Each structure stands twice: as C-alpha cells, then as structure tokens.
C-alpha cells in the first residue's frame, strides 16, 4: 500500500513535473559554444551535467548522445530520454529524441480518496507505457540566435482498458495523457532563443499537440522566458506559459505565470 505521505508527494511531483517539463519542452539542448541551452537539436558537451529544480537531470555522454531523467518523479514514474545528435544538413543540426516513461505507479498514487485525489479511486489504472520520438532541427540564424523546429510522435500501450473518466482535465496534463486513451498522438513546434545583452537571454517556444482519434484533439502552448546566466554553473529563469486546450467540457485558455526556475550545471570528471 502506498502511504498517504507518498501519495501527496506524488501528486505534487506530477504537477510540478508537467508544469516544468512543458515549460522547457523537456529536452536537453546545447548552443554551439554555450553551456546553457534547452529546446534545440544540440546535445550537451561530453561530461557536462545540468539540472534545475523543475528541470530534468541531463548528461552529455558522448559528442552525439545525451541522457536525461526526471529525478523527482523517477521512482513513481520511471522515465528515460536519449537525445541522439545526427549530422548537419545545410547548416541545420538534426537530432532525434527518444523517451520512454511508465506513468502507472504515479497515476495509481493520485487515484485516491481525499486530498490529492486527482483521479477517482473507483477506477483501476492499468499498466501503461509510452514512447515519444521527436525529430529536432536547429540552425544559427544570427550571432547567438538559434531557431529550432521539432516534430514528434508518441505511442502508448496499456494492459487493459482505461476508463475515459480517469482523465485529468487540466492544462498541460490533459493533452499529454491523451495518448493513453487513443494510442498515439502528434506534436510539433518551434523554438527561438538567444542572447539579448550581457548575461540576459530569452526563449520563445510554441508547441501544438494533436491526438487525431480524440474528440478533444488539439492543444497549443506558448512559452516566453527570460534567463539570467550568471556563469556556466548557474542560471535563473522566469516567464509565462499561455495554454489553449480542448477538454471534455470544452475549450479553454490559461495563462500560467510566473514560471520560475533555478538551474545548475557542472562538469563530471
């Protein structure tokens, strides 16, 4: 039996994870010659590790491979992502990102009576697994300015029927869980980021989610972030996320703000 404390923790972690994964796109990245990066096709330098309060822990394993996990949720939602940097085409760096996650323990933890019950305990959550594959292409369009495009496919499998009434009808969560009800979903987007002046950087990101078989099949998220990079070892970011989504009750806009995160980076010897 999962304790009440664990379930509370799990729910908080689920919300934090989804909020911040969505806020950052959930992928590792690397500007050429810059240690801080996110949302591009570039991988981290070999031996470099980065983590944030709400960021995944990322590690540059080789010049073309980067691993990442979400340490906060890994015990309740085992997950692993691998970014594989391929070759350049006409100045575009191309990578693929492959991630696997098993949300069943986490969802079973929040399917509970009382506080923290995001899903009614009357429903059974089956074993489920999802695989996301994403293609990213990045290019420097000016000095310190990187443009990225991305396109992805998520596939999910489950051991038994998942009752439709188990949906968590909240922004960020609903479109990412839709794949478990319909088998597959698509996502795509663009990202523009770069230096503004001195230590100040920006990031603008737009992403759409489409689940073709679903009635509520569309979501759009737009992120704006300002980043202050103190050094290669620390950065601070804040911003907002604008979300439009279709839910079982209809469509709705949400403005999520402020988003705040602290991030650290270091080199593993």
């Amino acid at each position, binding site marked *: 039996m999962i304790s009440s404390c664990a379930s509370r923790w799990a729910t908080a972690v689920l919300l934090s994870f989804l909020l911040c994964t969505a806020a950052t796109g959930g992928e590792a990245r690397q500007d050429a010659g810059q240690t801080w990066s996110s949302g591009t096709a570039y991988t981290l330098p070999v031996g470099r590790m980065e983590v944030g309060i709400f960021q995944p822990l990322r590690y540059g394993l080789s010049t073309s491979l980067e691993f990442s996990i979400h340490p906060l949720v890994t015990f309740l939602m085992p997950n692993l992502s691998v970014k594989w940097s391929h070759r350049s085409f006409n100045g575009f760096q191309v990578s693929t990102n492959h991630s696997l996650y098993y949300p069943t323990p986490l969802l079973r933890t929040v399917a509970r009576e009382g506080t*923290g019950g995001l899903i*009614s305990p009357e429903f059974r959550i089956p074993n489920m697994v999802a695989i996301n594959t994403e293609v990213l292409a990045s290019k420097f369009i000016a000095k310190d300015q990187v443009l990225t495009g991305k396109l992805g496919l998520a596939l999910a499998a489950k051991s038994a029927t998942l009752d439709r009434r188990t949906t968590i*009808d909240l922004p960020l969560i609903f479109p990412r869980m839709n794949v478990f009800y319909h088998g597959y979903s698509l996502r795509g987007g663009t990202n523009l980021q770069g230096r503004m002046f001195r230590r100040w950087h920006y990031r603008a990101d737009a992403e759409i989610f489409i689940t073709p078989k679903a009635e509520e099949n569309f979501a759009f998220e737009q992120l704006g972030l300002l980043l202050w990079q103190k050094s290669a070892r620390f950065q601070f970011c804040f911003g907002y996320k604008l979300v439009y989504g279709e839910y079982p009750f209809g469509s709705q806009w949400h*403005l999520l703000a402020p988003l705040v995160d602290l991030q650290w980076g270091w080199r593993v010897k």
Partner: protein
Amino acid sequence: MIKETRIHTSQRHWVLIATALLLSCDPLVNQFKPVEEAVIYTAKHQQAPPNNIDKITVMTWNIRFAAGRRTPWFGDSCGDRVILSEKEILSTLEGLAAKINDIKPDILLLQEVDVESKRSGYIDQVQWLLDHTYFSYGAYASIWQAQYIPSDGLGRMNMGNAILSRWKIVEAERIQLPQRGDQDALTKYFYLRRNILKTRIALPGVDSFYVVNTHAEAFSTDDTKKRQIERLENELSKLAGAYIIFGGDFNLLPPGSDSTDFCMEDKCSGESFHRAKDNPQHKEGSNYTPEMNWLRGLYDRYFCSVPMKDYLIDQPRHFTHATDPNATWDRKIDYLFTNHRWLPNTSVTHQDITDLSDHVPVSAQWEVPR
C-alpha cells in the same frame, strides 16, 4: 445534500500550492460577489406561454445532480461512487424530464443542478432540462464552481440552484448567503457558497412577481443555517408590495416535528453516535434538534404550501427526503412559501417518485392575483 469534500488541513497545503501554480492566473474556486447577475438560459425551441391564467402550478425539487436515488455517491451517502457516466446521468435526466412533463408545473425551482461538472458527464443540466421539457426560460446561480477540486477525483465542478419558467425571466440575481462558520479557512475556500436565486418573472397581469429559490447549508454544526434563513427573510422583506413565491431545500424541519435526530437513520457502516465515548456525538447534518425553531419566522409571516396544521396532523405524508436509498421518506426539508395564496388542498408531496433523487418534489397551485 452535499457533504464537504474531504480536504483536511494537514494534507492539503501542498495541493493548493501545486494546483494554484498550475492555474495561477485563473481562480481555482469562483468566489462570487455579494450580489451579482445570475446566468440566464433560453430553451432551444421556445413555446408560447399561456396568457389568460387564474392559477399557476409551482414545484420545487432537489434533483441530486441527476445521480438518481440509488447511486451510492460518496459525498452524500454511504457510498464510494464519484464520477458517474454520461449514460447514467442521461438516464436520470430523462426520468426527471418525464415526471416534470407529467406534473407540468409552470414554474420549477431546482436545487443541486450540475452545469458541466465532471461528476455528471459535463452535461449542462439546466439547458438539457429546458430542451427536454416545455419551459422556455431558465436562470441559474452557482453554489460550487471550481476549475478543479483536487480531492477524490472530483475535478471540475459547477453545481447550483435553477429556476425554470414558461414566462420570461426579466431579472435574475445571485445573492450570496453567509458561509459556514465552523470550518477553517482552507476548507472554506474549497467549500460550497450557498446562495439565493431571486428572479422577476413576467407573469401576465401581475406587475411585480418574484420567484426566489434557495438551498441552505446541509452539514453545519453552528448557526449557519439560521443566518442563511435570516438573510433570506431580509431579502424577502425588500420586496414589499410584490407578489412572492419562494422555496427550495432548506435543510431544516418544520417546527413541531416529532423526529428531530436522524443520526441513527443516516449513519454509515462503522460509524457510531450518541454513546458516551462517541466523538462527535451527532452525525453532521443529521441532528436538527437545536434548529427546530429556525423556520418559525417564515411560517409566521408567509403561507407554506403545506400549512403547519396539516403537517402536524400527518407528518409522514409530507416527508420529502431520506439519506438511505432503501428507506421510506423520513423528514420534510423541502418547502414552498408565498406572501399571497395557495389554492386549498392543491399541495402535493410526490412521494411516489422513488428513484430519481434523494428528495421528492413538492408542488402546489398558486392563485394569480386579480
């Protein structure tokens, strides 16, 4: 009756923070102004109302969000159901519409009506009932409106009071009632916000005609209900010179009722009350003994569709509610009042409707003033 969702102080601070972050620019729970406009509805296909009338039929019904009487919903019975299927809700709504079409009230006061709530298949029950009966106009005032209730999987919630009418509703106000005084601040934040739904209806030949609907607190252990009834009386007193019909689920017994403590009738498996070691001594919402005179003022100043003397002669005949889905109706908590005149012997407590809600409707014919 809707029990509070089980959000306990020691467990919920992180939920509030995490969910507030997620929805940071939109309020989690709608707070409402002290007085604001209610939501006005119109039926998809409007029907011409009668013009030459000398009486109208009025009915009040707590419909338990179309969950039916037998569904063991966790919040108001000894059950574990939370989220009903659309099919279950539609089946009950069809039953409710059939009964309404059969009894044919001209004006209908409804309590516990859901509007796009997760627990009831996201159906707008006000619009659905308008579109499946002969009513043309509706007004709605929410009691419990939250983007997300992070407890028991409840999710999105919007429940309230409604008035359906054959004649146009020309004004509709939502008037906030005092909140419970026996809850901590955080529980209160997520809890229901009871209200008075006050409407002015264009009844032919009557200049100033108001219909007022309310649903008083169900589980308070302090004087909340008394303050809510006083607020209702205060609002009614502002309508001097107008014709008024008011009613609803008052969650109070008529003064003089024989049975006033229902802890034994309402208790769930494993619960114990009334013994020396029991704490609390009484089940929340089941002991009416300290509240027995709180409706006396309404009885003194207005005319109840079931006059006090009729009620006292044969109390069971007028019972409107029971918490046990298999029990016979065991208390009267649903009322119709007016400052004008009910036609004698026209009040009916529809105790034959056993499966559609944990309340039965009460109807009566009202004389249209000349």
